[in-house]
C-alpha cells in the first residue's frame, strides 16, 4: 500500500483529518455508506453466482473497489452527471440504478441498463476510455447552459494509456470544463500491471495539462467522499477540471471469463484483503458506536432480499422477441432497417408455420 495518498480513515478505522479535505461525519452518513457498500457487494456476489450457473453471459466483479466508488457516488449532487465503466457497481448503487435492470445487459437482452435521465449516469461503454470525451462534452454543455452542475468521469488505470483520455484532458483544460476525472488505479488492466501503463504515478500526468490532481486511498470511503465532493464543488464554481487517482485493488478477476492466477501473485490478495474498505468502515463505526447489531441485521436482511430478487428475476426471464433487435437503430424510419425487419418477420412466420 502506497503511503503518499490522502486518507481520512486508517486501515484500523481511525479517523484522521486533512486540512484540504474537511468532512463532517455523523452516524447517519456512516450507516448510509455502510449500507451501500454491503448492497454493492451483494449485487457483485449474486451476479458472479448467476454467471457461474449460466444465467448471465458475463459479470465484472468489483470486490475491493467499493470504497472509492460509494464515496464518490455520495459526493455527487443529484443534478450532477456521471460517466462510468462497467465496474462502477458502487456508483450504480448510490445513484439508484435498479440492480435487476443492471443485469439485463449481462443477460444479453439489452446493450444498456438504465434510463440516464433518471439516475444521472450515462450508459457505460465497454470500449476503454471513450467516455472520457463524452464527459468533457457534457461538461461543455453545462457551461453553455450556465447550469450549477458538474461531471464525474470514471475510468481505470488502463484507460489512461488511450488517446481518448489524453484528448479528454486536453479539451477539459482548454475549455475549463466542469469535470472531475476519477481514475481507479486497481493495479491491473486484465493481466497487464499498471507499471506497463505508466512509469510515474498516474496522478502526475495531470500536471502536463495544467489540471490539478490528487492521489487518494481508494479503500477509504471517507477520503473518496471528501476529495471528490471538494473537487466537484470547485468545478461547479468555475474552477475547472481536476484529476483524482484512487489507489485501490481489484481483488476479483477482471471478468468472470478471466483467470488471474495466470498473471498475478495470489499473495497480493492477502495484503489487499487486509485493507478491505468495508472492514475499515466497520472498524471505524465500531470505534464511534455507530454499528449497532439491529442496524447490521437490517442491512443484512436487505442484502438477502436483494440477492433473492436478483436470482428469481433473472432466472425467470424469457427470451426477447427477435424482432425487437430492429428497434431504435435510428430515431426516424430508415428504408434498409425497415426492409430487413420485414424480411425477418416473413422468415420467422415461415419457420413457425412449417
Amino acid at each position: 500500500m502506497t503511503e503518499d495518498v490522502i486518507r481520512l480513515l486508517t486501515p484500523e478505522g481511525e479517523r484522521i483529518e486533512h486540512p484540504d479535505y474537511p468532512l463532517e461525519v455523523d452516524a447517519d452518513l456512516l450507516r448510509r455508506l455502510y449500507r451501500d457498500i454491503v448492497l454493492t457487494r451483494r449485487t457483485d456476489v449474486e451476479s458472479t453466482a448467476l454467471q457461474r450457473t449460466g444465467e448471465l453471459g458475463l459479470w465484472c466483479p468489483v470486490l475491493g473497489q467499493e470504497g472509492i466508488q460509494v464515496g464518490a457516488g455520495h459526493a455527487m449532487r443529484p443534478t450532477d452527471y456521471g460517466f462510468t465503466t462497467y465496474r462502477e457497481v458502487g456508483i450504480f448503487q448510490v445513484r439508484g440504478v435498479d440492480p435487476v435492470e443492471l443485469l439485463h445487459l449481462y443477460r444479453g437482452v439489452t446493450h444498456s441498463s438504465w434510463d440516464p435521465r433518471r439516475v444521472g449516469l450515462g450508459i457505460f461503454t465497454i470500449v476503454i476510455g471513450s467516455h472520457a470525451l463524452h464527459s468533457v462534452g457534457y461538461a461543455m454543455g453545462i457551461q453553455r447552459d450556465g447550469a450549477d452542475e458538474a461531471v464525474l468521469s470514471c475510468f481505470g488505470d488502463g484507460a489512461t494509456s488511450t488517446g481518448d483520455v489524453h484528448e479528454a484532458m486536453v479539451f477539459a483544460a482548454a475549455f475549463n470544463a466542469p469535470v472531475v476525472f476519477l481514475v481507479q488505479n486497481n493495479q491491473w488492466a486484465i493481466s497487464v500491471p499498471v507499471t506497463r501503463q505508466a512509469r510515474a504515478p498516474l496522478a502526475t500526468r495531470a500536471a502536463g495539462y495544467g489540471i490539478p490532481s490528487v492521489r487518494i486511498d481508494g479503500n477509504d470511503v471517507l477520503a473518496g467522499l471528501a476529495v471528490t465532493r471538494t473537487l466537484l464543488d470547485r468545478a461547479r464554481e468555475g474552477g475547472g477540471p481536476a484529476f483524482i487517482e484512487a489507489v485501490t485493488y481489484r481483488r476479483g478477476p477482471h471478468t468472470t471469463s478471466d483467470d488471474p492466477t495466470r498473471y498475478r501473485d495470489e499473495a497480493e490478495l492477502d495484503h489487499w484483503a487486509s485493507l478491505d474498505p468495508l472492514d475499515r468502515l466497520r472498524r471505524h463505526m465500531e470505534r464511534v458506536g455507530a454499528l449497532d447489531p439491529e442496524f447490521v441485521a437490517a442491512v443484512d436482511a436487505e442484502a438477502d432480499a436483494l440477492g433473492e430478487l436478483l436470482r428469481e428475476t433473472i432466472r425467470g426471464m424469457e427470451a426477447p422477441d427477435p424482432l425487437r433487435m430492429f428497434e431504435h437503430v435510428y430515431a426516424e424510419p430508415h428504408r434498409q432497417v425497415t426492409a430487413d425487419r420485414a424480411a425477418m418477420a416473413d422468415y420467422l412466420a415461415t419457420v413457425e408455420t412449417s
Partner: protein
Amino acid sequence: MTSMTPTTSMTPTTSMTMVQALNAGLRRAMEGDPKVLLMGEDIGPLGGVFRVTDGLQKDFGEDRVIDAPLAESGIVGTAVGLAMRGYRPVLEIQFDGFVFPAFDQIVTMVAKHHYRSAGITRMPIVIRIPYGGGIGAVEHHSESPEAYFAHTPGLRVLTPADAAEAYVTIQQAIASDDPVVYFEPKRRYWDRAEVDEVSPISGSPWTSRVLRRGSDVTLVAYGPMVRTILEAADAAAEDGVECSVIDLRSLSPLDLDPVVADVQSTGRCIVVHEAPVMLGVGAEIAAEVTRRCFFHLEAPVERVGGAYIPYPPNRFEQHYLPDVDRVLDAIDRVTAV
C-alpha cells in the same frame, strides 16, 4: 426543389458557390435553433480551410462556433457529450483523410448510441467531411471513404451534388435526430448554382433524384460524379444514346426504387464513383439492381470508379478519377451487348 428544376421568374434566387451555399445553410440553421453549434479545427477566425464557416464565429460567438484543439476523436467524442446534453453539434473534419482518428467515436459511439440506449438518447450530430479528389492536393486530402460509413448501421450518409442541394440538405441533416455523415464534394465547392433561400425547406433528403430521363442507359452517381455523368449523358446523346441520370444523394438510407424502375425500362445500368470499385457503394447497387431487374437487363451492371489502390499522387489523378470519357467507354460496353 432540386437544382435541376428551372426556377420561375417569381422565385428570387441567388447565384452561389457550394461553399457559399453551405455557409448560408449553416447560418440559417444556427439562427433557427440555439442548440445548433459548430466545432472543428480552424473554423473560427479563419472560417475553415475552405471558408465554409466564414464569418459565423463573429456573428454567433465562440461558444457556438468552437475552434477545437487539433484532435478529431476529441471533436467527435465531445460532440457525443454535447448531444447527450441536448445540443446539436455540427462538426467539421478538415479533410477526408483526417476522419480516421475519429473513426472509433463515429462507428462505436455516434452510430450506436441511440440503439444502445434503447432509443432514450438521440445523437443529432452532423459530421461534415470535404471529400474526393480532383484538386491537385497532397496525400490524405483526396479520399472517398463514404462506403465505411454507409456500411455502419446507425449513421445516415448524405452527399450534395451542387450548391442548391447543399443549401437545403445541410439544413435537413442538422434537423435530423439521427447522426449524419455529410460528405461535401470539394472539387465542386466552387461550382455555382442558383440557390433558393426564400422557399421553405421541403422534400426528403433520403431519396434519389432523377435528373434526366433516357431510354437506353441508366447512369447512377452521387456527390462529385453527378456533374460528370450529366456531362457524359450530354456527350452520349450526341451519339444517339439516351441516358437517364440519377443522383443517389443519400447513401444511407439508399433509395434504389427510382434506379430499379429506370433500369427496368433501359435494361442497362452504370454506377460511377471516385472510391475504389472493389466493395464500394457501387457493389451494393449492382447487386440490388441485378436482383431486382434480372429479367430486364440487357447487359451486366457496370461500375466505373477508382482502382484498388490508395489515392495516388496528384499527377496521376486525371487517370485515377472517373471522367466523361471513362463513363462513355462504359456506355459503349453496355450498349455493345
